[in-house]
């Protein structure tokens, strides 16, 4: 039997976390049914370290904190990408990019004394940036992304400006789509004899398509 390594659906589950001195912030995560939740002990922030890591969906995004913003050092964030609804079962743009509904959720994120936690998505080259929105009271932000490879960035912005096209505040946390793990094989593994530069890495890649400005 292989049930131990399979997911049971991808139902978004909001897990209320109780942490002394921290606001109650749910996390949206997909939990495997067999993963038992360790109950948080009120008043004992150390209990949070016992929280099991949920068995995340394959395309989930693990947000990695920077530690640059006070009150965020113990935060944890998860991004869940699911296909936008489509009559075809797979949602694709006319140029062939996947269209995802993206939910970013944080727990144990201390409310800022000033400013707004804001979620952005950007291409890996950061040449295109889209503001997903300010974290709501549940610590979540939702939006749509139609890129195959992208980064998710949580920043602390001085203003809640829906018209903003680029962040200006410090980065709190960031993560990448699972496709970010796709990498060149030049110089690695079975192709270790193939020099990276020969294939355009470490220099301008002549095969790379021009990107829209």
């Amino acid at each position: 039997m292989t049930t131990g390594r399979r997911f049971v659906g991808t139902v978004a589950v909001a897990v209320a976390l109780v942490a002394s001195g921290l606001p109650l912030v749910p996390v949206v995560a997909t939990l495997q049914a067999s993963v038992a939740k360790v109950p948080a002990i009120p008043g004992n922030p150390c209990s949070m370290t016992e929280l099991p890591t949920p068995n995340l969906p394959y395309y989930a995004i693990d947000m990695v904190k920077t530690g640059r913003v006070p009150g965020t050092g113990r935060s944890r964030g998860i991004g869940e990408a699911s296909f936008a609804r489509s009559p075809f079962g797979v949602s694709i743009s006319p140029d062939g990019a996947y269209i995802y509904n993206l939910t970013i959720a944080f727990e144990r994120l201390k409310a800022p004394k000033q400013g707004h936690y804001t979620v952005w998505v950007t291409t890996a080259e950061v040449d295109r940036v889209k503001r997903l929105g300010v974290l709501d009271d549940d610590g979540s932000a939702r939006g749509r992304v139609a890129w195959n490879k992208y980064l998710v960035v949580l920043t602390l912005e001085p203003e809640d400006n829906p018209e903003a096209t680029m962040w200006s505040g410090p980065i709190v946390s960031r993560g990448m789509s699972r496709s970010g793990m796709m990498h060149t094989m030049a110089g690695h593994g079975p192709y270790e004899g193939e020099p990276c530069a020969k294939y355009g890495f470490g220099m301008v890649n002549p095969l790379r398509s021009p990107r829209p400005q």
Partner: protein
Amino acid sequence: MTTPSLRIGSLGAFLCVISGVALLTVGLASQPLEPQQPPPPTPPEPQQMPPMPETEQEMPGMQMPGMQMPGMEGMEGMEGMDMMGSDPAAWRMPPMDRPMPMLPDLMGTTPIVDPFLPDVDPMSLPEAVPGAIVDMEDGDEIDIRASLVRRTINGKMLVMYGYNGMYPGPLIRAPRGATIVVNFHNEIPAETTVHWHGIRLDNRFDGVPNVTQPPVAYGESFRYEIFFRDSGIYWYHPHVREDIQQDLGLYGNLLVGAPEAAYYSPVNHEEALILDDLLMDDLGPIPYGEQAATHALMGRFGNVMLVNGTTDYRLDVARGDVVRFYLTNVANTRTFNVVFGGAPIKIVGSDVSKYEREEWVDSVVIAPAERYIVEVKFDEAGDVPITNSIQAIDDFRGEFYPHIDLLGTVVVADGATSTDHSAAFNTLRENVDVTSDIDDYRQYFDRPVDHRLELTLDIENLPQAIVLAMEFEAGLYAPPMEWNDAMPMMNWLSSAEQVHWTLLDTETGLENMDIDWQFEVGDVVKIELFNDPDTIHPMNHPVHIHGQRFLVLTIDGVPNENLVWKDTAIVPVGTTVQYLVDMSNPGDWMMHCHIAEHLEAGMMLGFSVREPGQ
């Protein structure tokens, strides 16, 4: 309202039914095609398979400096391949979309199976003609022959297969409720059958070898009775070595009409488009595996796009015309993302019914064996390209890149349409008949899952370099869908003797044909399919169920808000999809992945539906 003109390719055709005998008249050739009494076939000479070279040094054509195959510029490590040999049936490296080096340990390696191509002088064969339409009524009979034909694609003369010497095979048009008889004759030098894909017909005529019938040997015949229970677009193809026989041209459409006058919206034209691809180079098709399919990992992606068997599909319309396209994907493995040059697209139906509600879409995603019915309005004069628009993966460089294939062109004339269907086109219909039909099944939507399947694979005896490369990548990133052959060398070298795709019943632990589910007519069964992303090489699977119809209830737990009856549906990597199957048709049936090479690699199971009490 004008009567829609339905055509395949550039031929108009009509059928005269006289005293129950179907006579087909082809507009271009003006020659009756049916009934025909072909002469008894003469067995061709035994096919001469070139022996596998024992060593690289024995491979012909190895050292031909200065010569390169299209698409292979800059490729490294090809020194051991029979790149330029004059024998088109010898193994040679498939062309690639982008150059990439060969795994060092694979230089000179060829598939472990022998190469196969029909070994016949093409000039000895009749040239295939574009497909024709055959209108049939209840009780009509038609002869269909599978035979060798001569084709010319991209300027190359090829030996391919054809039904009735056509590409695609005849489009059989019949009303819902009719039963027709197809007298099938096999004139290709291999066993075959005909499967009537999506048709809920009598089990005896489902065309599965050694399950519903014995395979039809060369020179033999089989009589199929086909009952058309549901309106819509269907297709027929072999169920023996689909990776070869279907790929070489054995496919055709079945268009089942509806008695209701307003079943569809009024349109100016109806077009049946069969989408396909063919893997070939300057010598012709890349050989197939004789004892087992090659390309078992990802399926055989073609590099030449075909619409109704041609590379230059063209449709002429007037400005403002609305066209209803019946799309069928007969490719071995390629999922298309079809774009009509930005023209508005309305999705109307899919495999076995219309949708509950029509919707606007920007493109049409169609996996192997699926069908979609869409209406498109062409408001601007000029050439409108029909394209397959994807983000391909360069596995070696680890990046996506945009890739567009031109599938055909709609030429929109300056003159305005003779009949304006704008009002109907701009209206999204609610199909009450579909919703009402589905209403009877809503009580089962929340029922427990009856069977769970995990889609996975095992490998054995693959070259160590391939295993190493896959292990190197396993667990990092597998795309939900494979839109191109991202690793053409490794894929080509993987045969169905080395790759075993698996439908695993997680409750019993049984796999593939060891599974033998039993149902009764009237059962409504929930089957959950999970495409395991943690295998050594996950891939999307279009899973097809024979003889029944099903609803895609949920995808990753999200309910489907606009239902349509299906017989084939995509299960992307890492995704859990729930089918609700209407077990309405008794008999012994198949359920399998419709990627031809995955089917050949074992990814199928059987189930039985019995009358109550039997």
